[in-house]
């Protein structure tokens, strides 16, 4: 747990040259659950899009497993991408494919495994997220929570070293959200992969119990970091303290 698998250095991000977040530096250790927390519009998802290489920073650098994502050529980029899996907020499952086909797609494209083996592996992944028996279902036949689970199974398809999850429990009822958070915490324990999770749900933060960085829209940066229990008591940053305590009361 002492090697940094993700490292950002003075990262400034935004759109059309207008920064949303400035000088963001942090590192994520291999095997930990790392939570990016913040209110709406603070740039959580923007940061995630940069970490997974979907957007170019205005300045600064991102290193994944020691390789620079910002300066990566196509081969290095492919190498980095083979080590990450992403579950998007809305699931982003391919609507014309069954769940099994969604999960099997990367295995079919990037490995030489026999078709039956791919099918068995994909079935196992679906069972791992509690969707055994839903192999032949289309995403449109699933509930929101099931779609998020299926997206998680697809993200795990190639056994990546880092899993990025964007608002995994957003838009779900509290019980389904808690079940999904428990599943993620359990998977983190079993698989030992690094989880980077973007959320604004405080209940999830405590269930997942990972290291938190909290972003703020006004200061365009990280205003607090640490374990959830520490942040709950830490009064050094009034904004963070208020976010934690008020949200907790409300939830």
């Amino acid at each position, binding site marked *: 747990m002492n090697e940094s698998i993700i490292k950002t250095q003075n990262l400034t991000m935004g759109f059309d040259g207008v920064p949303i977040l400035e000088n963001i530096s942090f590192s994520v250790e291999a095997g930990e659950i790392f939570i990016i927390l913040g209110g709406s519009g603070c740039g959580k998802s923007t940061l995630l899009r940069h970490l997974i290489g979907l957007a170019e920073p205005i300045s600064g650098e991102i290193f994944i497993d020691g390789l620079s994502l910002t300066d990566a050529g196509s081969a290095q980029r492919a190498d980095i991408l083979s080590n990450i899996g992403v579950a998007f907020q809305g699931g982003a499952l391919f609507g014309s494919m069954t769940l099994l086909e969604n999960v099997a797609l990367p295995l079919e494209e990037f490995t*030489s495994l026999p078709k039956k083996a791919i099918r068995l592996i994909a079935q196992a992944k679906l069972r791992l997220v509690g969707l055994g*028996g839903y192999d032949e279902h289309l995403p449109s036949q699933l509930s929101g929570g099931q779609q998020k689970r299926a997206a998680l199974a697809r993200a795990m398809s190639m056994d990546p070293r880092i899993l990025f999850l964007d608002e995994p429990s957003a838009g779900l009822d509290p019980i389904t959200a808690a079940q999904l958070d428990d599943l993620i915490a359990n998977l983190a324990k*079993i698989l030992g992969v690094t989880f980077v999770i973007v959320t604004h749900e405080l209940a999830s933060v405590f269930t997942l119990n990972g290291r938190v960085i909290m972003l703020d829209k006004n200061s365009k940066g990280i205003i607090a970091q640490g374990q959830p229990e520490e942040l709950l008591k830490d009064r050094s940053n009034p904004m963070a303290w208020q976010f934690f305590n008020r949200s907790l009361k409300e939830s």
Partner: protein
Amino acid sequence: MGYAKSKSGVSLAKMRISYDKDALRIVLRGRLDNYRAAPVWRKVLKLLAKRHTKPIHIDASGLEYADGSGVALLAYFKEYGQKNDLEVKIENLSQNISSLLDSYTENPPVEAVKQPESLNLIERIGQSSMALAGDAVEQIIFLGRLTLATAKTIFTPRRFRAGDFFRMCELTGANAIGIIALLGFLFGLIMAFSSAMPLRQFGVEVYVADLVAIALARVLGPFITAIIVAGRTGSAFAAELGTMKINNELDALKVMNLDPAVFLVLPRVAATLLMTPLLAIITNVAGLIGSGLVILSLGYSLVTYTSHVQNIISMTDISIGLFKALVFGATIGAVGCFRGMQTKSGAGGVGVATTRAVVTAIIMLVILEGIFSVMLHYLKI
């Protein structure tokens, strides 16, 4: 945390199978990951395709690493054992692979969650007929709503969304002038050229002007224009309204007590109704220019060509053509909006709605053209 390792290792996955009198013995070695497990998987699938009666003992002491594919392979052995009531013993498995295997196998294979049963031929025919009848009913309801919306707007004109109407006129009319003029010109040119060659054999090629002019004014001008508008604008309406439906924008209008027919459909139908005749005029003019070029190239003068055109076309012909274009335009707009509002969920739904908008519009155009032909024949105009 040994599970997650880079794929950049060197040791290959290997499997040795041996049979003795007590058991089928398998030794696994190396790294069983997505990139290296393929040969082992092939062997295992072949091996377990047969029915075994002896217990299976797997020695995993040499297994350095297993990811999802490796663990799924071990799980497959276990499931084979359960299914065939056979002892499958996996020995010397490292702690982290073992706990991962437990998590793979602790949720036992679940029976497939029931999908709706597929229908037989007769049931399918019945279902399609019901769908067709339902579609016809929906079309009538839509037409009724549209008529009601038009009546409401006539009595309270301030309800009409003039801004949207002008934007739609620009999209439907002004932005289509280039393509309409080009296709009209080419169509006139091709029609004149194709008919001039056979007519030349009889020395009456100058009548190409009459043929093209009358065909364009009465039938082809409005029809070609309508086909282009259906492909270009009808599909765009369906896609736009379909996306709005998926984003719940139509529901939002309804709960705000705003009638989607007044708010969305009417400006669009009014725009296609008004713009299609204007575009038909451009098609006719461009077509006549195209055919004129052919006549000039055959050695006739411009005066001869224009006098033939003037003599053959009457105001009635032009009016008939423009009236047809008016009806075609309204039909295309209404069909595009109707199909858009019928969109089912998902990105594919918009595609289906767009296709149906174009296909329905073209079928309707052909039917309407047929009705017009019969009517004009009996009215003797």
